[in-house]
């Protein structure tokens, strides 16, 4: 069973290599077939694998296949191996499924681009790296995927190599991620130092089976340290405070990239990692607290920034940061399956939002500024309708996908005894609905704020782009049904049940039953908050268009603060980036290296020359000079002998 598991990641790798090496020569239809074909086949293989998994009994739903030893040095052994269990099963379906759809969309979006083969090669490479990440059976393999997706992100953000801003953004993404990665790898080292193994199975088994080894004082501290170090990596990869700054800039990449990498899959890797390491996190109150606080703060902060941004993709980027915050909140309150649930539904509706935005940008000839759109629903009806579905889904309107996952997170926060987290999360849900419909109304409703030249070529996108929109819209509508909450009276949460075996080693806190009617009330409140946000947006951007400008003028200070994103980028530049460069150049290089160190070396050389210069007078070739030296020497010798005698 599952002998073909290696095919899932290797198919996209082969596609990437083929397109990268030969795609330029063989033309765009070859590139299309290879690029989309490998993604599609990977999806089929993933679907078959998950079906096989479902057919097995729940306790047997874990397959680990080792292929060869990658690194072995003493106990430090990492096999090249792939793991399939319910958790990675969900992930590979999302990655290859959404990935395939976005690949198809890219055929239309990237049509005619000079680097078409390069684009598909990178996209396939990304799928490979992401699949390695989620199918890794040990920490080091996970790190391979972890850095691999970072590389693809770098390549694809900087895809338009002409633009300096794209190059800057790609570099920023890579470097900021590297900061996180250092934390992650140190966490892996601490895992190895503590457990003597890098394998998930072995490490989690030790944690779960030997609580004695981790007495309250030291053991939990160690687990907390591991959890926090790994979490630094998650903060970088999943764009949380304080390392979220790379993600909005990452919108420099082509829109399908934003949809696949910077919304649906890569940025969720941090959430996946925390859930994968649930046995560690669930045993450290402190680490869970940090995860929750970082998550909820990021959710709130990013949502507030999203209120004022005018670039359609940047609104979505901050929205992604915010939604990732929700997922961490879920993990932080040990509702791990709710986190993965939201990860999945978010992949559907956020990919849809980005692809919809891409369709808008495509139609408008590259325009991304919301203030220069308006009234587009007449020109792009399919895009408009699917975007509306996505906006409703992310706002958490019943019965779309986002409702179920977000509601489960918020309720878990309350049930886990975090009322403040719940309240902030609820308020954030209101903000989310507001900025999402602000975007929708600004783009598709109201007067047209663009010139005739733009109107002239406005068009709905080709089918290769609209069909993916429709598919994702369907998923965003029904995707939540896999995890219906128990209060609906339709049985237990099937999604949570399916994931349960993968979370078996996690520590389960005592939970007290809360009646279904209470849960229902909470769901009602969530929907209410979203509705308020939507109606507020409708009032400000459709009913009374002057209101938004008026409010911005009234609250100049807060508005500017939000619009300038709390000045975080500027602060980082002033306090960190610029000082490091200046100190390196002026002090370290010109001061210490050239001045002091090399100066000393050359100084020794120069002093040798001075001594030589003095000594050369001894050897001047004049006989009388030599005679006088002989005389002096003889006199000194005589004096010395006389003194020795005396």
């Amino acid at each position, binding site marked *: 069973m599952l002998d073909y598991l290696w095919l899932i990641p290797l198919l996209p790798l082969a596609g990437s290599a083929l397109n990268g090496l030969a795609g330029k020569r063989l033309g765009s239809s070859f590139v299309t077939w290879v690029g989309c074909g490998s993604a599609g086949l990977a999806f089929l293989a993933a679907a078959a694998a998950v079906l096989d998994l479902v057919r097995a009994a729940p306790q047997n739903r874990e397959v680990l296949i080792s292929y060869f*030893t990658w690194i072995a040095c003493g106990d430090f052994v990492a096999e*090249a191996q792939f793991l399939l269990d319910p958790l990675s099963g969900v992930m590979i379906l999302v990655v290859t499924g959404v990935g395939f759809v976005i690949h198809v969309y890219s055929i239309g979006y990237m049509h005619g681009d000079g680097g078409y083969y390069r684009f598909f090669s990178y996209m396939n490479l990304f799928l490979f790296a992401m699949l390695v990440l989620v199918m890794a059976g040990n920490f080091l393999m996970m790190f391979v995927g972890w*850095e691999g997706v970072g590389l693809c992100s770098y390549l694809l953000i900087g895809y338009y*190599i002409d633009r300096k801003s794209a190059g800057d953004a790609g570099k920023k993404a890579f470097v900021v991620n590297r*900061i996180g990665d250092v934390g992650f790898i*140190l966490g892996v*080292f601490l895992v190895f130092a503590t457990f003597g193994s890098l394998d998930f199975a072995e490490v989690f088994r030790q944690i779960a089976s030997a609580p004695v080894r981790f007495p309250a004082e030291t053991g939990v501290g160690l687990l907390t340290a591991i959890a926090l170090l790994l979490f630094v990596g998650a903060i970088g990869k999943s764009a949380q405070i304080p390392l979220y700054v790379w993600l909005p800039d990452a919108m420099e990449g082509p829109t399908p990239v934003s949809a696949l990498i910077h919304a649906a899959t890569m940025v969720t890797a941090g959430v996946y990692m925390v859930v994968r390491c649930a046995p560690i996190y669930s045993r450290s109150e402190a680490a869970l607290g940090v995860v929750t606080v970082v998550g909820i703060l990021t959710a709130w902060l990013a949502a507030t920034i999203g209120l004022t941004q005018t670039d359609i993709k940047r609104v979505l980027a901050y929205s992604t940061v915010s939604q990732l915050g929700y997922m961490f909140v879920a993990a932080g309150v040990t509702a791990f399956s709710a986190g993965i649930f939201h990860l999945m539904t978010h992949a559907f509706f956020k990919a849809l939002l980005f692809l919809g935005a891409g369709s808008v940008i495509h139609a408008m000839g590259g325009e991304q500024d919301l203030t220069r759109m308006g009234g587009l629903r007449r020109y792009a009806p399919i895009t408009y309708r699917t975007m509306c579905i996505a906006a409703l889904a992310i706002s958490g309107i019943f019965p779309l996908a986002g409702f179920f996952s977000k509601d489960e997170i918020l309720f878990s926060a309350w049930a886990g005894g975090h009322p403040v987290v719940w309240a902030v999360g609820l308020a954030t849900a209101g903000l989310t609905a507001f900025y999402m419909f602000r975007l929708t109304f600004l783009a598709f409703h109201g007067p047209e704020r663009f010139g005739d030249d733009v109107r002239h070529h406005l068009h709905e996108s080709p089918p290769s782009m609209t069909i993916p929109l429709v598919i994702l819209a369907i998923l965003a509508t029904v995707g939540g049904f896999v995890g219906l909450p128990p209060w609906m009276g339709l049985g237990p949460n099937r999604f949570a049940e399916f994931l349960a075996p993968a979370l078996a080693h996690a520590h389960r806190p005592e939970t007290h039953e809360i009646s279904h009617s209470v849960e229902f009330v909470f769901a009602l409140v969530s929907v209410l908050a979203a509705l308020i946000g939507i109606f507020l947006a409708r009032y400000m951007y459709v009913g009374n268009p002057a209101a938004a400008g008026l409010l911005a003028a009234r609250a100049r200070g807060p508005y500017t603060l939000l619009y300038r994103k709390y000045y975080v980028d500027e602060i980082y530049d002033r306090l960190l980036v610029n000082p490091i460069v200046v100190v390196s150049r002026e002090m*370290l*290089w010109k001061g210490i290296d050239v001045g002091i160190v090399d100066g000393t070396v050359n100084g020794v050389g120069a002093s040798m020359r001075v001594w030589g210069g003095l000594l050369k007078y001894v050897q001047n070739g004049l006989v009388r000079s030599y005679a006088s030296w002989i005389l002096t020497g003889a006199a000194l010798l005589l004096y010395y002998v006389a003194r020795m005698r005396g």
Partner: protein
Amino acid sequence: MQITHILSWLTYLPAALAAALVFFPGGSARALKWFAVLGSTGVFLLSLYPVYHFDPGYGGMQFVEESAWIQAGGYSISHHLGIDGISLFLVALTTFLTPLALLASWNSIAQRLKGFLICMLLLETGMVGVFCALDLVLFYVFWEVMLIPMYFLIGIWGGEHRIYAAVKFILYTMVGSLLMLVAIIYLFLANGGTTFDLLAVYQNLESGRLVLSHRAEFWLFMAFLIAFAIKVPIFPFHTWLPDAHVEAPTAGSVILAGVLLKMGTYGLLRFCLPLFPAAAVAAAPYLSVLGLVGIVYGALVAMVQPDLKKLVAYSSVSHMGLIIVGMFAFTLQGLEGATMQMLNHGLSTGALFLLVGMIYDRRHTRMIANFGGLAHNSPVLAAFFLVVTLSSIGLPGLNGFVGEVLALVGTFLRNRTYAAIAATGMILGAVYMLWMYQRVFLGKVTDPANAAMGDIRSRDRAVLIPIVIMMLWMGVYSAPFLRRMDASLELVQKRVHDARAPEGGYQVRQLKTPAIRKSDGR
């Protein structure tokens, strides 16, 4: 098939090729180049023999050959060669890089071609000899022999300030090697004054027949250390390196960065650690700190370099710093990571210098500010450069990662703070390499000279493809490389470990009565 005296073949075949070149008719440049490239390729193929027949389970010396060389007045200097898991791949690295460096110089060396080829081949003999020599005097001879062709390579075929750089290079290195010579003679006398054989010294130290006093061990360690520290180079002995690299021709830089620097770290592993373990243990904290300074300082200074070659040179300081830190953690992972990192650095930095040379041949400048947008007109060059860049910054899946992660985890097991500081090199490496890459290859083409610059052709690809293949191989399937190092490094680790006081920590062992033979005639 069995080849006897394989190490002699590997060592002296390049010199024989050089000698043959002397008698070559000087007229046909192509024939000369083909002869040198094919000949050194033959040497490389020959060096696969020991790799293939190496016994990974045995940590001692293999393919050993020994014959008397100089015998006089009761002492003997032997021609004693052998390799173990430490030197095996360093020999292969040398023979691998030499033909590639020659091939890369195909058009860039127009004057005194024959002399250039002879220097390169003699250099190869010196380098292979250093890695194979098991007699202290023989080692010293090869160590010095190798300096002379390098001196000429920089001084004759170098850039504008080549004389300054060449003199600085040779003086700096000579200072170190003189101290080493003194230490070798002292060690010879202390060991009974009969043999310079390294393995005999190992044996006598182990059996307790040779016991060095605390002070003697310290000073011997220091003498060897300074010779090697200059070569590595360990901060603050590094300032010869940027000058030498900037002035050296491409092939010289490749060999210098790829192999010569490794001799310093190799020397530490071969001599300083096993011969003077107590002193090494005592010095470890200081050397680790110097290594850490090298990592951070080298990276920060590399970041602000305006010249591509200087940037790569300072990045070497950073990378070599990690090797030092990993090595002086004395854990198996640290030692093995350091050894692996020597190979990785040889490949990636060698390749970087090759690439910079290819750019220089086309654009006649190395100033980063003069470039921009090269990826438009040289996409193949840009792609190769990217892969090598990624190898250099330790992306998993390529070779650099394996050495880096082992060195770091080895350090982590000894000292977590050191490991955390060393790990910042991962960030800084990405900063300076990607920033450089962006300024050279990305963005719009602003200078018409960059637009006119052609892409690399088949000969350059033939140089780069083998390197990229090795990078992938070593990164994806590292175990076969690591396995061959295991046993030898375990021996080194054991020697160092035995020198430690039982309660652990950095303490010098209690010494027995000093048993140095008083041979100074007083």
